[in-house]
């Protein structure tokens, strides 16, 4: 059975990837899962400078999901290059670093510095975190601004030969338009979805339940919305689409492949079960075997209408 997938220059042994912000920098997961058996790992988003993140409470459970407002809490580029990278260097699987900048120049500097590290061969450009504000756009999210998406990606394309993955938001008028913009600007792949903006209120105190007031919704409750976005994006572009959003088990994962995902990312499910991604990989294999499909490639986009 052939599970191999190519994303830009990345060659993945299998299409199951740990999503950004749900697996730390790999080390945090080592007591719970053998990461080397997965396709790849995307790190927590790093920014040029340290960010302290949003005030607590930062996470709230919802019916079938999770609302979070972490606010890109991270130690910054230096902390990554001096501390976090050492564990990642010893991994046998591709490491994808997620980056976010307040300005285009910050994105560029992050990409330039990361390109110097030999173990990093791909960058996921986080254009869609709902918990921070960006300069250089009048939109709440960079991923809602087609021009900003184009500008950032084309600058990054000139900066690095690493594989570039644009992480998009589902919360846009037309995902096809944004996905095309990312492709035209030089992205090797797009990944979606990031979380949906949302909020909850404590009716006793009349205060928002999250310290950051609003947050991003993830988990099984967003899966149907995510599948629709993945299908729309798949129909719009010729680069690989990495699908995610509420994948809890192999059946969910298979739905994403059928809708056009070349690979999938496991996010919130890691919080419920840190070993789940390997269970999902096994389940995908079983499905392919049962359906007598020889290669995962033959499942991608096979939606019958």
């Amino acid at each position, binding site marked *: 059975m052939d599970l191999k997938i190519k994303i830009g220059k990345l060659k993945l042994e299998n299409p199951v990837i740990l999503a950004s912000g749900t*697996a730390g920098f790999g080390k945090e997961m080592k*007591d719970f899962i053998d990461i080397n058996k997965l396709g790849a790992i995307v790190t927590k988003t790093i920014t040029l400078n340290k960010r302290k993140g949003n005030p607590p*409470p930062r996470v709230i459970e919802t019916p079938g999901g999770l609302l979070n407002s972490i606010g890109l809490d991270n130690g910054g580029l230096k902390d990554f290059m001096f501390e976090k990278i050492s564990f990642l260097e010893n991994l046998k699987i591709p490491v994808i670093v997620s980056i976010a900048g307040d300005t285009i120049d910050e994105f560029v500097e992050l990409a330039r510095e990361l390109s110097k590290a030999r173990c990093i061969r791909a960058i996921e450009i986080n254009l869609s975190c709902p918990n921070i504000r960006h300069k250089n756009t009048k939109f709440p999210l960079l991923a809602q601004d087609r021009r900003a998406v184009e500008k950032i990606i084309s600058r990054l394309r000139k900066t690095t030969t690493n594989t570039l993955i644009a992480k998009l938001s589902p919360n846009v008028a037309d995902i096809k338009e944004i996905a095309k913009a990312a492709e035209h600007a030089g992205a090797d792949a797009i990944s979606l979805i990031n979380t949906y903006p949302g909020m909850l209120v404590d009716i006793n105190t009349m205060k928002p339940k999250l310290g950051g007031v609003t947050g991003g919704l993830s988990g099984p409750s967003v899966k149907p919305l995510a599948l629709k976005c993945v299908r729309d994006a798949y129909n719009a572009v010729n680069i690989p689409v990495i699908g995610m959003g509420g994948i809890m088990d192999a059946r969910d994962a298979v739905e994403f492949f059928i809708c056009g995902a070349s690979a999938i990312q496991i996010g919130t499910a890691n919080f419920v079960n840190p070993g789940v991604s390997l269970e999902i990989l096994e389940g995908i294999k079983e499905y392919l075997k049962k359906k007598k499909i020889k290669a995962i490639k033959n499942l991608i986009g096979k939606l019958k209408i």
Partner: protein
Amino acid sequence: MKQFKAKIISNKKIAPGHYILSFKAPKTAKNTKPGQFFNIRVSQTYEPFLRRPFSAHKIARNKIEILYKVVGKATEILSMKKKGDILDVLGPLGNGFDLETGVSSVFLVAGGHGVAPLYALAEQIIRGKSRALIFIGGKTKKHIVSDKELKELGAKVYISTEDGSKGYKGLITDLVIRHCKAASRLAMTTIYACGPKPMLKEVAKLARRYKMPCRVSLEEYMACGIGTCLGCAVKTRTGFKLVCKDGPVFDSREIIWT
């Protein structure tokens, strides 16, 4: 690997709304420190969606006990579990209490079922031949648990209730303060506390006033329990720290109380 399936040995109601659940953990128990916790999935459905953290109440050779109060859906489901049922457990997680060496006596301050991790600590202290004074406060006598077991263990137990239905009538910190005055003359008394935030804040104040070292075990909304989601942040003097990974036990001077 720190994820395992654990068979429930017993799940007993010990007081109205309070339960002690015991599960088999032959490989885990010997590596578990007082103050550490387990993140337990109570249901294979998505309702409730996340795991729930429970601190180790008793650590035996082959098993772990947790003490919990039914406060919502997850703990209600847990309370209905039977002997032989299997739990999906992550742990032991977190830093746990670090006992300072050369301490002659220790104050343990609990608010209600905040006594849960302090029992395991008391056991360790008494085994180490130090004196353990435990202060348990609650709204009413219904909120006081584990006091008998702690007495049997050899700890000196002080109780307060806000309505006076058991022990001293008032707040537990009123009782602690009396002993702080005496203890501050003796060197090396450490306070360990677990309970609601307002109580911990008062205990931290007392500790500062009487110059006693103080460790508090904190709670915060938590998702992963293993340091990946960064959800359970608390404000400290050196920035946000994670209850699940940097804690749950913190030096009280480190915390910025809000």
